[in-house]
């Protein structure tokens, strides 16, 4: 019976052969099997192999070496086309039980180590210098910061503080005759209408003002017949309910406009460059080429929706209506019910951001701990009015006035895919409708987990719905689900087929 099986050790001679005769692949032998087998038989001191046996021998070798040898077939028959020498080394190492030597890396490591020892040995290096060295950000942080910097989605405009500019632009944009003739119902013109007025009247003011109006933000004083300038600014500004009769001064904010398309094209270029350079550390590997999921939302009573329908999320944002006053509008959760929500089902590891107000900070922290999170940070939202001033009056808190709100940040598990230390833990943003939170949070979360990570907002409203996010709560209108699996499970629990 001819031999048709070889043990791993019996291939060692073949590996040696290939290393010695690496010319066997080249002309004139050209890797042709009938030539190689002759050479191999003379090299090894074992019983010579026939061509068929040699083919079986190679077959066996490929099965233990993860196809180290690649074949090609042409008119001359089977040829060895390519030999992967790294794989040869791995087989050799495995058979002999010796660890593979990655010489290059080892040398580097030794160098760094000796550098560090040398550094620590030098007497000039004080303790502070070493601490300083340790306190440097990691390369990962530096890289992800740079990447986020490239991807900032919108332009930024300075505020012009030249009162002359604001006065002139106010006269041009807010002359009441124009407002009443163009738009009898609307109190203020739209931004587009303002820029039409500015273009039409540009002969009336200097080029400087014209240019400035298109590049900076201006707060235009609204001078009505009942306005008394010596009274100063209205403390409610643009949220004043009695603007038509209020004698204090109000302002109209004229911000420069851009076409969103320009910015989108610019960003597309950045994404393409990042894609080509595979700059995806901490994000999904297809971060820059995949389409972002459309917005999804489910109108539901959060207490009754089985969370298993939703799947798992990398980031969760929630703004519960904490029942500090015990009088609840219909459908809101009590604190006890909130604590009982099976939040542990929504995340294996990831971040949860929870909005709290004054007296609910403590219960919010308790809830996060109960749901399995460690409190990693506390972001504050500095609430500003139209003129970017903090809110300092109006008995907004029980003992002191409140100029800020807190966003608790919990971390579950130890996810390696978190891109941390990109943003700062203070958000500075205008107040809007009652209890509406700043949108800055969404970009901040996306910088941490990436735009394709699954993200959930609990107790969201219609204005919270956005691409890449799932929004649930009893205040969203209707239900829209895009992900197949969620849709399937949602139908399953609702008995729709």
């Amino acid at each position, binding site marked *: 019976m001819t031999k048709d099986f070889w043990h791993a050790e019996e291939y060692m001679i073949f590996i040696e052969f290939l290393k010695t005769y690496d010319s066997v692949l080249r002309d004139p032998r050209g890797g042709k099997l009938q030539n190689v087998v002759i050479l191999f038989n003379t090299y090894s001191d074992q019983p010579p192999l026939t061509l068929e046996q040699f083919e079986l021998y190679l077959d066996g070798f490929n099965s233990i070496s993860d196809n180290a040898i690649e074949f090609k077939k042409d008119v001359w028959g089977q040829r060895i086309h390519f030999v992967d020498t790294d794989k040869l080394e791995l087989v050799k190492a495995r058979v002999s039980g010796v660890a593979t030597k990655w010489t290059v890396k080892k040398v580097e490591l030794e160098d760094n180590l000796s550098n560090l020892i040398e550094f620590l040995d030098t007497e000039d290096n004080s303790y502070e210098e070493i601490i300083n060295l340790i*306190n440097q*950000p990691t390369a990962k942080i530096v890289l992800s910061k740079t990447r*986020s910097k490239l991807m*900032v*989605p*919108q*332009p*930024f*405009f300075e505020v012009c503080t030249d009162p002359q500019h604001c006065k002139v632009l106010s006269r041009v944009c807010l002359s009441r005759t124009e407002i009443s003739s163009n738009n009898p119902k609307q109190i203020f013109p739209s*931004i*587009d209408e303002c*820029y039409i007025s500015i273009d039409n009247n540009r002969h009336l003011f200097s080029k400087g003002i014209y240019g400035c109006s298109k590049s900076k*933000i201006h707060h235009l004083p609204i001078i009505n017949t009942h306005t008394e300038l010596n009274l100063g600014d209205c403390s409610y500004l643009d949220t004043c309910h009695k603007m038509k009769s209020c004698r204090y001064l109000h302002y109209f904010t004229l*911000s*420069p*406009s*851009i076409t*969103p398309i320009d910015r989108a094209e610019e960003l597309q270029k950045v994404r393409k460059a990042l894609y080509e350079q595979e700059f995806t550390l901490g994000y999904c590997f297809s971060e820059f080429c995949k389409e972002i999921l459309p917005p999804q939302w489910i109108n539901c009573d959060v207490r009754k929706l089985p969370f298993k329908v939703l799947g798992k999320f990398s980031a969760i944002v929630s703004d519960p209506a904490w029942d500090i006053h015990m009088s609840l509008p219909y459908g809101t959760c009590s604190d006890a019910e909130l604590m009982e929500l099976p939040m542990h089902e929504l995340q294996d590891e990831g971040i949860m951001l929870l909005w709290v107000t004054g007296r609910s*900070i403590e219960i919010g922290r308790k809830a996060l*701990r109960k749901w399995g999170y*460690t*409190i*990693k*940070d*506390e*972001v*504050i939202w*500095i609430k*500003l009015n139209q*003129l*970017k*001033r*903090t809110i*300092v*009056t109006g*008995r*907004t*808190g*029980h*003992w*002191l*006035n*409140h*100029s*800020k709100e*807190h966003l608790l*940040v919990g971390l579950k598990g130890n996810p390696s895919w*978190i891109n*941390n*230390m990109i*943003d*700062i*833990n*203070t*958000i*500075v*943003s205008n107040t809007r409708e009652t209890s509406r939170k700043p949108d*800055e949070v969404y970009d901040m979360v996306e*910088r*941490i987990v990436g735009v394709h990570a699954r993200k959930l907002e609990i107790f969201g409203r219609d204005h919270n719905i956005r691409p890449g996010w799932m929004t649930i709560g009893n205040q969203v209108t209707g239900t829209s689900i895009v992900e197949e699996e969620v849709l399937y499970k949602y139908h399953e629990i609702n008995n729709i087929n």
Partner: protein
Amino acid sequence: MFKKIENNFANHYVETQELPSGFVTNSSDLIKGYPKLQTLKELKAKQTEKYAVKALGCRVKTRDLVQTVNRWTEEFKLQFDVIMIGCMANNQRVLKFLKELPLLKLCSKPGFLFIWTTVDEIESLTTILNQNYGKKFRRSEELVFLPVNKNSIFYPQQDYSRLFENQQWNCWMCITGTVRRSNDQHLIHCNIDTDLQFENESLVSYNAVPNSVYKIAENFSNFNRRLHIIPYELGKTPIKLRHGWVILSPDVLLNNFNPLDYETQLQSKSLINYKNNQVQYLVGQTKEIEDLRPKSPGK
């Protein structure tokens, strides 16, 4: 079609590293545009100054600090109405001291505690207040102080294992005993200050805590006995004294505190109020202040 753009300071920070707080237009003068509030604060400062005991320091080594306080409470039955603990410094290990200090004896009732802390310590601090002090000090406000410049000596050291860069110093205001917001106007004045303070450009020299936070304590509480404990050496310039406060620290500039002299000074300086066998040392208030201060609705 044009889209109105609202400036996004978070994105702007990522792009330029310019701190969002730099765009707050009243950060150097929070009450700009509120002349009545301005006057009220000036009047309050005047009263505080008028009733203040002289600036006192008690220089004690860290390891003798708890013992010193124990002696104050045991031998002299010394009590304070406002006690601030810690300051803006990393690794100040205030938590360890909180466990050891006889705060329930040292703090009068009603009394107010201001504890400096950082986000990493919030959980441990909650545990200590609940377990060591049986929830007797109720966390009532969380003050935040923001250095506005990354080169500031107050700017916090960054810990790169965090999720966000840190710009905040936190100071908890805790209350023990009962004070009523609407009826105890001789004891407390609510809603004069806010829970957010910014580093001020005019604050040039180094001090362990910003004056604005001392002022919050003085404006809120009308009690006259104030103590500030900074348990560790900061290794910087010495801690400065403040009128109306006793500062207990290994680092304090002067060592001029004596419990008996302090008692005498308090007696002569304060407005004395007797309530249920208890003496309250207060800062007298004026009618003008009463007219100007923010009040609860319906009052």
